[in-house]
């Protein structure tokens, strides 16, 4: 058994267990902590798959940035430590059936697809190739993403700013 197989198994088990916890843990704060572990497992699988740059990006942006945003939003919600964020157990039946059907459908699809695989790791590190791709065939997409990022940031500032003249905002001040 090679070391890489061991780490693949480890990250996959970690991903499945933490994904189950994200969906089913009654407390949304602990679900967020489970989400950290599932994002970490995806970062580890990126590493196993030879995507070293993406593994670093996943760690920096997801685990370092988005999780902080999620935890900050959770801290605002009232009664964090009371398990009142979930429905009655009966309301879980149909969504769980939908999720089980999704998994079964995907697995059947992958099983029937007769995927031809050829294990070949790309040259590591991938940073140089990523940079060349971003200014080569993907230059236009890169610019579009930059515009979307700018628009998203401006939109976030506009939405989050207190609205003057809005009667509800005026009522909050008093």
């Amino acid at each position, binding site marked *: 058994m090679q070391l890489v197989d061991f780490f*693949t198994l480890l990250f996959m088990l970690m991903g499945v267990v933490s994904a189950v916890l*994200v969906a089913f843990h009654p407390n949304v704060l602990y679900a967020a902590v489970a989400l950290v572990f599932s994002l970490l497992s995806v970062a580890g699988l990126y590493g196993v798959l030879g995507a070293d740059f993406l593994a670093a990006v996943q760690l920096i942006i997801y685990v370092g940035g988005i999780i902080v945003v999620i935890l900050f939003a959770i801290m605002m919600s009232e009664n964090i430590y009371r398990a009142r964020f979930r429905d009655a157990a009966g309301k879980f039946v149909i969504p769980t059936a939908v*999720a089980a059907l999704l*998994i079964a459908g995907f697995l059947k699809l992958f099983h029937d697809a007769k*995927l031809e695989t050829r294990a070949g790791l790309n040259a590591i590190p991938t940073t140089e*190739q990523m940079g*060349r791709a971003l200014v080569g065939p993907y230059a236009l997409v890169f610019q579009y993403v930059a515009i979307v990022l700018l628009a998203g940031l401006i939109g976030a500032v506009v939405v989050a700013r207190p609205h003057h003249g809005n009667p509800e905002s005026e009522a909050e001040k008093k």
Partner: protein
Amino acid sequence: MLAGLSTNLGLYLGLSAVFFAFGVLTVLTRKNAVGLFMGVELMLNGAALNFVAFQTFRPGTHDSWLHGHVFSLFIIILAAIEAAVALAIVLRVFAARRTIDPDRATELRG
């Protein structure tokens, strides 16, 4: 027993299917706007993992561009934008309603 585990494309695809399905389940069952957002993040991660797995196990000819990696990078960037906008909306809804329960912020419902 575990030999060849890391070079089995089906395992990665199955794991990303599990991520996607549990993301859908989270979105369907959470009673919290942040919980919905976490489900969306899980779904995006499953899709991005698929791109990287297919890039590594690509059959046939391959050029030197890392197409799958670039698409996963774009997915991560768009998820970051989504996080910023979602937090802004959650802040506004919380300031106006003192709650982030999506079942109680229903002014826009027809």
